[in-house]
């Protein structure tokens, strides 16, 4: 950890991180000797996460936000770049060291149905983590499971139940209790409320806020829904096609977004205003395939402001002032024309 990082109490530093996946070739392609293709899901991304903050990560499906979240826990091996967690380079760690590290970093998954083993009771699911990470001895395990369930607002009686008998909101609480069992300081939340109905979603969001304050958690909060991210985040990063296109203090990004993609995203969200809309869609077209990334700025084919330079030169992430940074050649123009 550098001296500068220690000043800001940085928990996690990501530098030029890239994650590639191999693309499967068909038999015909193999016979024709087609070259192996790579899909770059995360493309040279840099950012940091500071202690006690919640960094929101927002973007549409396929933008790489889940891949990035998983990579931070070293569930994928980076193709390039560094991930520094509390001064250790994750890419260089072996199995044993990773295991130790994972008691400090955990993940909560989107789907509370597939992320719990249907043949294990809630108590067994949480108890297994306690056992594996040697959090407590076998005698204290039942009491510890009860404490964890209480922490996430479930009764101790839930320990004997199977996931199949729980509602979506209850399952997500169990997923949270399992993540908290190792007493992590850093949690990646991957769309933790996306699968829940709104009345239950609000309960879980309140719980997450309470736990964050109570336990002093640092979070990466991944979501596609802007209002949910706004509600949870202190800082915000917007991803598009593998890149962070805008990052800054959440209030600043929401009040004066500087990237045309962020602006389009914000304008696309329906609001609770009971008047029939008469406008056309804000952003036209689809997100391009990550196998065929546009030249220059990757957003230019959908960008209402695109100019010649945008087609030729890829804009770097540049600070606009303070913490707020944007990867747009026309960021200042875009920002001043907002609203």
């Amino acid at each position: 950890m550098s001296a500068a990082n220690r000043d800001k109490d940085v928990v996690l530093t990501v530098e030029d991180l890239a994650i590639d996946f191999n693309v499967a070739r068909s038999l015909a392609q193999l016979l024709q000797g087609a070259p192996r293709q790579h899909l770059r899901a995360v493309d040279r991304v840099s950012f940091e996460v500071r202690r006690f903050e919640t960094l929101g990560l927002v973007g549409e499906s396929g933008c790489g936000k889940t891949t990035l979240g998983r990579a931070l826990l070293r569930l994928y091996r980076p193709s390039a770049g560094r991930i520094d967690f509390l001064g250790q380079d994750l890419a260089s760690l072996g199995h044993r060291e990773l295991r130790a590290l994972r008691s400090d970093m955990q993940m909560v998954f989107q789907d509370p149905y597939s992320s719990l083993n249907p043949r294990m009771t809630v108590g067994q699911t949480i108890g297994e983590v306690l056992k594996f990470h040697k959090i407590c001895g076998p005698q204290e395990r039942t009491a510890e499971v009860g404490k964890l369930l209480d922490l996430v607002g479930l009764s101790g009686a839930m320990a004997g139940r199977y996931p199949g008998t729980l509602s979506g909101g209850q399952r997500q609480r169990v997923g949270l209790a399992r993540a908290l069992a190792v007493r992590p300081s850093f949690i990646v939340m991957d769309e933790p409320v996306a699968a829940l109905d709104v009345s239950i979603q609000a309960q879980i969001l309140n719980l997450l806020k309470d736990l964050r304050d109570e336990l002093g958690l640092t979070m990466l909060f991944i979501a596609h829904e802007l209002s949910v991210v706004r509600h949870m985040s202190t800082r915000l990063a917007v991803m598009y096609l593998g890149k962070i296109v805008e990052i800054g203090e959440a209030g600043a990004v929401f009040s004066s977004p500087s990237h045309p993609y962020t602006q389009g995203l914000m304008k696309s969200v329906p609001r609770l205003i009971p008047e029939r809309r008469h406008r056309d869609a804000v952003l036209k077209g689809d997100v391009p395939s990550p196998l065929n990334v546009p030249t220059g700025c990757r957003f230019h084919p959908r960008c209402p402001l695109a100019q010649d330079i945008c087609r030729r030169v890829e804009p770097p992430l540049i600070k606009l002032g303070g913490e707020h940074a944007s990867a747009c050649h026309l960021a200042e123009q875009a920002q001043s024309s907002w609203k």
Partner: protein
Amino acid sequence: MPENHQALLEVRGLVTEFSLEQGTIAANADVHIRVRAGQTLGIVGESGSGKSVLCRAILRLIPSPPGRISAGEILFDGTDLLTLSEAEMRRVRGTRIKMVFQNPMTSLNPVRRIGDQITEGLSVHYGVSKRDARDQGVELLRRVGIPSPESRVREYPHQWSGGMLQRAVIAMAMAGEPQLLLADEPTTALDVTIQDQILALLLELQERTHMAMLLVSHDLAVVAETCDQVAVMYAGRIMESASTKALFDAPMHPYTVGLMNSIPDMGAAAERLVPISGQPPDLLHLAPGCPFAPRCAHASSDCAETPIALNEVAPGHHTACLYPERITRGAP
């Protein structure tokens, strides 16, 4: 008044039951709705509220067994659809009432060309020749905003994005210009910028063809932006129905207020949300009265015991609550 005051679709007292191993549940219990030509009725509710079942019941697509429509009338243009023969019903489904489902991928056959699928209905129900069908397929795709439709009609579903597929499904529904479109969570599987495109398309098509629309959604904001009337469903019942403006400006049911308070607002970082307490209803074990009573702050002992009918509390504004006067927005 130029508009026909008669409702194009009127559902009265609809009860749709499903027999499960553990007992019988009413997925729709005494549902009443009305939609006029050129208008959109939004049906809003959480999972299990019966909103999708309602759509399927209107088209008589309830699998039987285990399901069955056990009471009520579905009046479409003056005819009770429940009295039609299967052949007559098939004709209604093919020409006058169409449906768009949540996941476009499951509405399309993966091994058939998109163009053929869009125009199949035209050949079956209107006897359109193959050549004409092809031309009309291209035209339909152009109308829903697919670029270079001449070449794309020959492509297969896996070659298209989710947003394009939903456009194709909408094109398929628009073939033959239906009088009523049932859209069941048409944008839920899509990203927000694509949702924006599809909603714009649906509204534009409606303005052009004057069709009636039933838009089912779990998202209050989607309904607020697109519908003329709204009905809020919970545990198979309509809890409140009103014009969109009246419902959002002055909701008259604690469940509606609870839903509104549960949603974080993008405009401000509120400190805490006000969730609806408790768990979603278990349709197998409902009290005879209001199904929302166990989660309601205003409930009295009467609420759980006696069935509560929809009452008109203001012109066109109906609520199934005994104490609508106790409700104020912001304090559930």
